[in-house]
């Protein structure tokens, strides 16, 4: 096993006696006190997450927008300065390389935040599409910066963030938090209102302590995983990968087939024309048992797909999950079964947005 990389907050996690685990090659807290408590803190108040494992790539230069239009399926033509959106990088065959957030920081300055997995390959992939005279610089600042997510409805009462209370959803701005410089965005991966903050490492460390002093509960990956599952958010590498296309993954809304000549476009046009054969669904278990990644999905005993994510939802007090099934079994209300260690347990297809916040 390869040695885990450590985020700038690693010592803090150990000092808090977090249960540490490996995630995409990074040593990260699975939980500090309890996944259920941390989940509850985020749903009912605020939770703080170390998300520094995610890659932070600056794409700058007069050609930056055009370059991103080429490598992303949604493109950045419509993305105004001070805003961000979810986007996809696809392979030439339309398979999903990663989902990512693009933040338009300034004229000719974009920040990409992508998943921790396969960081080097993705950087190579990006660089491969650079051409001379494009006037684009790609700089990986993942290790020179820190990233914290502050998530939960009570962020709106957090006085130290009052400078950014007015920030729109998906907005991004350079700000001061108690005289500390940082980029802050109204984005997240929990289904709650909240902010994600990118700064240099010393600032990140001070912000972490500041939030702790304000009574904010640090939360681990365990809570994060349930929060995003409840909110219907996919995890790349688990719910989709290079063998999945955006339409199957119900991410077709991230593909703008009308924008320029982007990588994967002709394959995606063809996939769309032919139609998809399988689709990602949400399901709830109708009897006891928790579906886990890799469990078989059956229909009247016949194998029809696999669970990609699953777990216990404290918000719904139900066992929920995602999986791929043939398109004719994907409509809401369809009865399927999940094989939980040789036990066949009934499940029902439901909207994958298991949880929607009140506003």
């Amino acid at each position, binding site marked *: 096993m390869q040695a885990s990389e450590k985020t700038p907050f690693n010592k803090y996690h150990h000092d808090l006696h977090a249960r540490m685990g490996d995630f995409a090659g990074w040593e990260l807290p699975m939980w500090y006190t309890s996944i259920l408590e941390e989940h509850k803190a985020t749903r009912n108040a605020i939770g703080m997450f170390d998300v520094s494992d995610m890659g932070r790539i600056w794409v700058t230069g007069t050609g930056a927008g055009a370059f991103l239009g080429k490598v992303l399926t949604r493109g950045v033509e419509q993305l105004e300065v001070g805003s961000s959106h979810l986007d996809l990088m696809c392979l030439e065959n339309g398979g999903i390389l990663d989902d990512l957030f693009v933040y338009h920081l300034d004229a000719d300055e974009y920040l990409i935040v992508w998943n921790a997995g396969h960081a080097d390959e993705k950087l190579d992939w990006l660089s491969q599409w650079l051409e001379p005279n494009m006037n684009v610089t790609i700089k990986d600042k993942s290790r020179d910066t820190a990233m914290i997510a502050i998530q939960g409805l009570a962020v709106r009462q957090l006085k130290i963030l009052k400078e950014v209370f007015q920030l729109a959803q998906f907005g991004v701005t350079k700000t001061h938090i108690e005289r500390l410089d940082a980029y802050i965005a109204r984005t997240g991966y929990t289904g709650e209102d909240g902010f994600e903050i990118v700064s240099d490492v010393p600032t990140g460390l001070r912000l972490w302590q500041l939030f702790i002093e304000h009574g904010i509960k640090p939360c681990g990956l365990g809570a994060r995983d349930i929060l995003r599952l409840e909110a219907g958010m996919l995890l790349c590498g688990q719910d989709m990968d290079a063998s999945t296309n955006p339409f199957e993954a119900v991410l077709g809304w991230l593909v703008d087939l009308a924008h320029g000549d982007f990588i994967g476009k002709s394959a995606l046009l063809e996939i769309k024309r032919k139609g998809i054969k399988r689709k990602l669904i949400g399901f709830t278990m109708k009897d006891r*048992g928790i579906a886990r990644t890799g469990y078989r999905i059956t229909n009247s005993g016949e194998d029809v797909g696999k669970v990609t994510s699953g777990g*216990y939802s404290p918000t719904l007090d139900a066992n929920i999950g995602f999986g791929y099934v043939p398109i004719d079994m994907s409509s809401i209300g369809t009865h399927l079964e999940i094989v939980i260690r040789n036990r066949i347990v009934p499940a029902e297809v439901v909207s994958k947005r298991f949880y929607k916040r009140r506003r």
Partner: protein
Amino acid sequence: MDITEYRFTKEHEWICVEPDDTGRVGLSYYAQVHLGDLVFLDLPEVGSKVEQFGKLGELESVKAVSDVFSPASGVVLETNHNAVDEPGLVNKDPYGGGWLAMIKLSNPSELDNLMNKSEYNEFMKQCEESGQ
């Protein structure tokens, strides 16, 4: 909770045996810490036979599923309904109210295969060091 009379397995279960050869079985504190919040317990039917170190049931934590093994052979006399209804009891009180099952031992001499409290403390230290 006085657990000096408890005996432990390498899979981090405990058993506390009464003079009538009935034993109460549960998970160690260490095990519940490492499993995290338990949300579902699948325990055997009353009357079923279990083997020493054989499977007793399954525990689902928020993160994962794991088997729980019986520290001794015998017949299941009772399972803990309170813990089935509220699996978090196993996290809160693993040596007391969060017990899992009562077993009538069929071969009490098997208890010699288990660790006593101080042996188990030593074993836990090794587990921590090897990161298990």
